[in-house]
């Protein structure tokens, strides 16, 4: 099992609904967020092209945050989801330094917090809250090993990219382009 997400940059309008849904679902402290929206404008005026991406932890296959964690608080959960055990985390910040996507933050309570792919929902067979709330249906979540999953189907017919693959982390969030 390998959970992954595909996000259609052609359908995303950058409404930030995913950000708010995540903050509500996961009770993210005020001023923090586990996902965010990036708008990139390329080209020279008037020939411009805009790409909108909803970004979050990439749940990498080769996760530097799990590797550098001195206590084993950061770990691979079922399906390759990267999670943090708050009662094992000492708040040293090593994993925050190690993440090329800056997807982790120090929770006001001291431990490090991040996107969990809404594991509590996924375990019940539901989609992560960001995916389920998206008004343009531009996000696809599922098991890459299952050819019938939403994410496998989305990746089959489209060109896609990952962010900073040169960092060697094998990211598992794919952007349809």
């Amino acid at each position, binding site marked *: 099992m390998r959970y992954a997400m595909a996000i259609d940059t052609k359908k995303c309008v*950058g409404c*930030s609904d995913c*950000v708010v849904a995540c903050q509500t679902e996961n009770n993210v402290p005020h*001023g*923090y*967020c586990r996902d*965010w*929206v*990036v*708008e*990139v*404008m*390329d*080209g*020279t*005026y008037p020939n*411009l092209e805009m790409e909108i991406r909803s970004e979050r932890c990439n749940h990498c296959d080769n996760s*530097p945050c799990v*590797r*550098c*964690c*001195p*206590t*084993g*608080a950061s770990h691979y959960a079922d399906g390759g989801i990267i999670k943090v055990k*708050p*009662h*094992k*985390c*000492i*708040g*040293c*910040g*090593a994993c*925050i*330094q*190690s*993440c*090329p*996507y*800056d997807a982790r*933050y*120090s929770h006001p*309570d*001291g*431990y*490090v917090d991040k996107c969990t792919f809404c594991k509590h929902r996924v375990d019940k067979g539901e989609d992560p809250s960001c995916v389920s709330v998206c008004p343009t249906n531009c996000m696809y979540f599922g098991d890459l090993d299952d050819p019938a999953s939403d994410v496998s189907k989305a990746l089959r017919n489209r060109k896609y990219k990952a*962010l*900073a693959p*040169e*960092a*060697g*982390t094998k990211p598992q969030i794919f952007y349809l382009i």
Partner: protein
Amino acid sequence: MREEIFISGRNIPNIDPHLNIWHWQIPVYLFLGGLAAGILFFAALYTILGKEKQMPTTVKWATFLVPVALVLGLFALFLDLKHKLYFWQLYTTVRFESPMSWGAWVLMIITPLSMIWCATYIKELIPKWDWKFEFLNKFEKFAIANRKPMAWALLILSVILGIYTGILLSAFNARPLWNTSILGPLFLVSGLSTGAAAIMWMSKDHFERTLMSKIDLMLIMIELFFITHLFMGFLASSAVQIQAVGLFLGGQFTVSFWVFVVILGLVFPAVLEIMKLRGYKIPVAIPAFLILFGGLMFRFIMVEAGQITRYLY
């Protein structure tokens, strides 16, 4: 061409607009750890070489700084933790993939060992010293009889401690400015150099001072070579690293790095030491202080600048 990039809904404390999760505690610890490693290395080396008589400051007196430096450094590390009461989780597991984990274990061994080392010399420093308990007297005799094996252990552990301060940073692939394998040797040499400077400053003996001064001079030369090597490596590397090293070549850390680290911290004390060896009268405190100051500045700048460098945006 990139016209603009806009990140909405994100203004996380200490992460945006650029990472700033490690503050003064980390460079202070890296400095104190390197200093302790340097002093212990020379103490162990000259014990193994059987030069206790000629090098009393190196082998005996300077080592009293080590437990102080290590305890203060560990305290700084503790202050840096955000989930402080869980710090003991470090010692419930050994994770070889994580430099911080094996670094924590090395500190756990080397700190008490350096205290025992000092304890074997405390009666020479304070003749009236009394251990009060008989078992402590027995332990002291045992430790004094085993100084040579202890020196071997300290020699190896001090090198690991010194190189660890660099590897801690170089293991982070996500920060291009740190992600270079020369950083470990560079921090080790810098640590040895600050250790030698501290010994030189403390020593009253002409022979010992001159020897430490020559060693320090050699270490500064190696350090300058490593720094050149660092820049060559970066400039011949990937786009993110070329961009990262730009911080020192025209970017915001250019002045602080070249003035405080390279000129005041390395080149100027080297010139002073050469002049001193040639017979000019220069107070030892000046080059020694500059080397220590340069070492501290180097760590502050590397930690601060490294956190700014990144892959995305």
